[in-house]
């Protein structure tokens, strides 16, 4: 398949770029000559791209295939009033194939209702919790079909953060300790959990802010802090894949930036998949972008190719709204 060898397109011609949208003083990655624009078919990048904000992220050093989505279709069956008569519901995701790589951030973009959330939730079998959802195709994690992995084990390896910041109504500390505690064993001492909890907070970049009030209710934190707590919670179990469903949609630009930096920092440790409506955000932090439309994966490629020289007309129409 063509996405297995992503086109070398990554950076645009610096001359064509608008001045950085990011605040001055923000460390910008150095541009190297080999990252100069290379466009497919020798055609010029879309003109709408001219005013695009500068990418903050440098290409990652390595990429490791962790998950494969192979020809996955997901449909929701409506349970009709007539008992037993299940009408075949509409397909929310139609034969999508994608790799999920560690070391690179994968962004899923597309208009509302195109199946991004549905696809994301299928990666840790959360779709199974929805009545009437059925999945066809195969998803593998390190070559193992995820349907053969016990769901709670799988969800410890593939964790998810939601659109709404949703810390549990307990203390900051307990929010993370809860995730770490095994149900079978007796509650481990607080002392024993302190290391991992602080470590998770540190990785989510929240430790400095909450170190003094680990015992405060998590719901008293600000929205951005709550969302980072949710990320810390998802990181606490040392997952291999981190799924983020519009993690910044409820946040202000400042918190958004903190979380974006965090995601980029994390990409070497975990494979990150992020769903976002914010095309600039996708452009800023993603390495690979999948554009979905009406359940189909219309285009997949590196961020440069999808935003710079989309092959499909639908992609071009969609991303042209990004920087216009």
């Amino acid at each position, binding site marked *: 398949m063509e996405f297995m060898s992503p086109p070398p397109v990554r950076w645009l011609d610096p001359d064509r770029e608008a001045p950085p949208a990011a605040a001055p003083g923000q460390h910008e990655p150095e541009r190297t000559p080999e990252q100069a624009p290379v466009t497919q078919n020798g055609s010029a990048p879309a003109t709408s791209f001219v005013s695009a904000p500068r990418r903050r992220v440098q290409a990652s050093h390595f990429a490791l295939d962790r998950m494969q989505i192979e020809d996955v279709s997901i449909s929701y069956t409506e349970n009709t009033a007539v008992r037993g008569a299940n009408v075949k519901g509409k397909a929310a995701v139609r034969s999508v194939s994608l790799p999920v790589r560690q070391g690179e951030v994968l962004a899923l973009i597309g208009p509302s209702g195109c199946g991004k959330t549905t696809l994301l939730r299928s990666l*840790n079998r*959360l779709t199974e919790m929805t009545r009437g959802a059925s999945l066809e195709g195969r998803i593998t994690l390190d070559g193992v079909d995820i349907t053969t992995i016990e769901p709670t084990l*799988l*969800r410890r390896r593939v964790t998810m953060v939601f*659109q709404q910041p949703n810390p*549990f*109504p307990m203390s900051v500390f307990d929010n993370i300790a809860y995730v770490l505690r095994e149900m079978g064993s007796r509650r481990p001492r607080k002392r024993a959990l302190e290391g991992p909890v602080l470590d998770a907070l540190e990785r989510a970049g929240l430790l400095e802010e909450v170190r003094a009030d680990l015992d405060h209710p998590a*719901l008293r934190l600000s*929205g951005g802090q709550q969302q980072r707590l949710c990320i810390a919670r998802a990181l606490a179990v040392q997952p291999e894949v981190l799924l983020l469903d519009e993690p910044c949609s409820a946040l202000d630009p400042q918190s958004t930036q903190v979380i974006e930096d965090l995601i980029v920092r994390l990409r070497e440790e975990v494979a990150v998949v992020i769903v976002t409506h914010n095309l600039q955000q996708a452009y800023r932090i993603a390495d690979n972008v999948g554009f979905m439309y009406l359940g189909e994966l219309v285009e997949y490629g590196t961020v440069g190719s999808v935003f710079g020289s989309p092959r499909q007309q639908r992609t071009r129409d969609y991303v042209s709204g990004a920087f216009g």
Partner: protein
Amino acid sequence: MSGEAVTTQTVIARHTRPVEASSTWRRTDRLGLAICWLLGLLFCAIAASIVIFMMVQGIRYLSPSLLVTRPTAGFSQSQTGGFLDPLIGTVVVALLGVAIALPIGVTIAVWLTEYGRPFALARAAESTIEMLAGIPDIVLALFGLLIFSSPILGFLSRTSGHVVFGRSFFAAGAMLSLVALPLIVGSTREGLQAIPAHIREASLAVGKTRFATIRRVLLPTARPSVITGTMLGLGRIIGDTAIIVVLLGATLTLNQAGGTPVISLLKGTGSTLTSFIYENAPTGEANQPNKAYAAAFVLLLVVLALNLCVDVVGRRGRVVSWSS
């Protein structure tokens, strides 16, 4: 200067609470409004007069010694002692009823909201509980007598030879738990349903089991509702008369069955404040109205205190909320 302040305040008041002047209304609307006021005031007056009447009577006849002296049979008010035993009886019955109803009620509520499978059984359970709430307690009492008089349940009450007495704290507590059950189930369900779905998924998405989610996240979040339901149920148990009169034996004093201390008490018979009032009301067998008024006052205070608790818990419980 003060005049200025007043005008400012009035202006603010007018701005913050724009009240439509009812003088502009049509006559029928004004009539409706007047009737609403009238009925509302009437209702308040009735409630207030009950409380005030009971208070006046109660304070007149209630003395601390009544609370700590045991009742004895006698013909004059001075001979019949206090109502220590009924007071203890009320506490025992309330504790027993709640001890049975709370775990069962919470379990049913959790099953209905979190699992609800198989569908038909869940619907059946739901309507059973609704029906249970509608059964008159005297019917429950007769039914309970039938059940607890059966030889199989003989170990729960006093027996003489092959005859099972069928009346005991156990019997009364068990049937009273059915009175409290619908309230606990209803309130707990409401509390659980109010928790957004993404909270459940957030817990599942980091690899926690459903059970852990319910135990550590959902039930603690719904705790105010559980407490409210329990308080309401407690109020119903404490105020119930029919089941007590029929199933507790309505002996004036605690009449232990003998054997192991606590079991002996629970297998024995006794009275509660309600049955004490019933017996001592002017229409009752004992006919000691002063005692009845004093006991009724105590009962009223207990129930009012419970309602106050419900209010306080309800208000505190609303603190838990997620930004949506």
